[in-house]
């Protein structure tokens, strides 16, 4: 039987390295790698060598993932609940993107200027808005987790990214592969794939 946890995690991460797949799927690295190799034997994932290499899905892998995820959604009778949560997600999404933009670029006297993070008050204001948005995102994640348990992991990953940023590791808002923005984008991709909506 195809390992949907690892296949679907990689589908939503896109193209990435072992450490990130293990982290996002909540598996130890050797376990994640062993499952990836099984998926590769089945022709569903492939590994590219080289300095920008990593793991990614084949076309067959994408098709298999779409089929399995659709079957899972039907079996759980969760379509309506996920559609509703997706609509709530789409209300929050533009605000999240505004906040990421505000984090990287700042309007100074009418000029978009790279935020050099020397103004702690400004950074604090952006961080406070992230925290406010996160409180509203919690409800959406809760509804998703109740509808389909595998969505439950996003709540913890978003909260972890925000907590690290609030503890002073500000790159965890929008600048790392485990940042709030990145986990958010993965959730967006997951919702689109789960509901079979093309991007």
């Amino acid at each position: 039987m195809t390992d949907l946890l690892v296949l679907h995690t990689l589908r939503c991460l896109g193209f990435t390295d072992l450490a990130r797949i293990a982290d996002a799927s909540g598996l130890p690295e050797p376990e994640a790698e062993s499952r990836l190799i099984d998926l590769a034997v089945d022709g569903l994932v492939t590994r590219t060598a080289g300095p920008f290499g990593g793991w990614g899905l084949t076309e067959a892998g994408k098709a298999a993932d779409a089929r399995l995820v659709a079957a899972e959604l039907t079996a759980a009778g969760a379509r309506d609940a996920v559609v509703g949560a997706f609509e709530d997600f789409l209300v929050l999404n533009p605000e999240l993107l505004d906040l990421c933009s505000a984090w990287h670029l700042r309007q100074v006297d009418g000029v978009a200027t790279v935020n050099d993070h020397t103004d702690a008050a400004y950074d604090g204001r952006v961080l406070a808005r992230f925290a406010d948005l996160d409180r509203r995102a919690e409800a959406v994640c809760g509804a998703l987790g109740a509808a389909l348990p595998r969505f439950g992991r996003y709540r913890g990953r978003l909260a972890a990214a925000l907590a690290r940023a609030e503890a002073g590791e500000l790159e965890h808002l929008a600048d790392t592969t485990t940042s709030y923005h990145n986990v958010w984008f993965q959730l967006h991709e997951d919702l689109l794939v789960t509901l079979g909506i093309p991007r």
Partner: protein
Amino acid sequence: MTLVHRLSPAVTADAGVLGGKAHGLVVMMGLGLPVPPGFVIATSACRAFLRDGRLPGGLEAAICDMRPAERVSVRSGAAVSMPGMMDTFLNVRPGRGVLEAVAAVFASWHSPRATSYRHLHDIPHDLGTAVIVQAMVFGDRDEHSGSGVAFSRDPSTGAPSPYGEVLFGRPGADVVSGRTATRPLAELADREPGVWAALLDGLARVERHYRDVCHVEFTFESGRLWFLQVRPGGLAGRAAVRVAVDLVDEGVIDRATAVRRVSAAQLRAARTPRIVAARVLARGLGASPGVAAGRIAVTADRAARMAPDGPVILVRPHTSPLDMHGLAAAAGIVTTVGGPTSHAAVVARSMGRPAVVGASALTVDPGAGIVRVDGRSLPEGVLITIDGSGGEIVAGPAETVAGDADPHLQRLVGWAAPV
């Protein structure tokens, strides 16, 4: 206190009462420019709504007295610009529909996204928005209809020629959404010479009035032009410097005004290196500043494979997490759709890579490994240079110039120096 003002040149209330957008409409009417008929509901009505949780008494009757057109647009317009943050309703029929739309626009002042925007930009939370109700004009009426946006001068360089985008046979929402490929503004000259002449005349008049470069939104319906919005200023860096200096040469403003207009931040931005190119292949929105040159790759996989042999520019319709390895490998990023908050823009900025987004004149054909522009085909591997400040894309290598060598900047700095 007047809650509702008919849009007319006779209105004397200021932008604090009417909101910036409606105030601009009144200015344009005063200049004799065609503006769809309508009225504006003052910001005080919004403040009353936000305080009491219902529309103020007398508003319904006041709106009825205005006898709205059969189909109207209902748009927000605060005293301070908050673009895209509040609700807009199109094709609203008179009666309860208009009232409900007005209440919904008022309520959208407190939407979380608008609230976040005010927090980030230091805008007071108690200002409220005005609401503009205007007769609809239809850019998709017939083959002599369309919509567009125009600057009175080139927003990238400041050069004194109009610049913008137009969509033939489409409503204005399609221009702003960025989902449909637009045409260069100058195509109006051939296809709708009457509209083009009226537009040039209008741009000249608003420039004279504001004594500054202006940006307008317009729709033309069955060959007749309508102005929907005007905004003065808004240029950045070297373009802002050039406009200020040119306006002095044209006798529109004096040197002191020019110096005052260009802020320290503008001067700093003017000094960042920019492409100098006689021929621009295409132009999008500068989404992450800096200049990058590299060979075209049209898929993330190809970018990752080509990158070890030298710099690559990843050119995509748009990007998603599936493209992360390509984004990481690329020296610069171009997308053909999407705006400044798109995935590509956010990721490029987080990595400090130059990026141009929404370069709608380009078409990417990943199957053939080709980028098409204006009938030209650029296969993968061809060198291009991109400027993430001005949004220019040029073929081949491009010379860059640091701002200090810019003649307009030198003159402006000279005027600023103590005598």
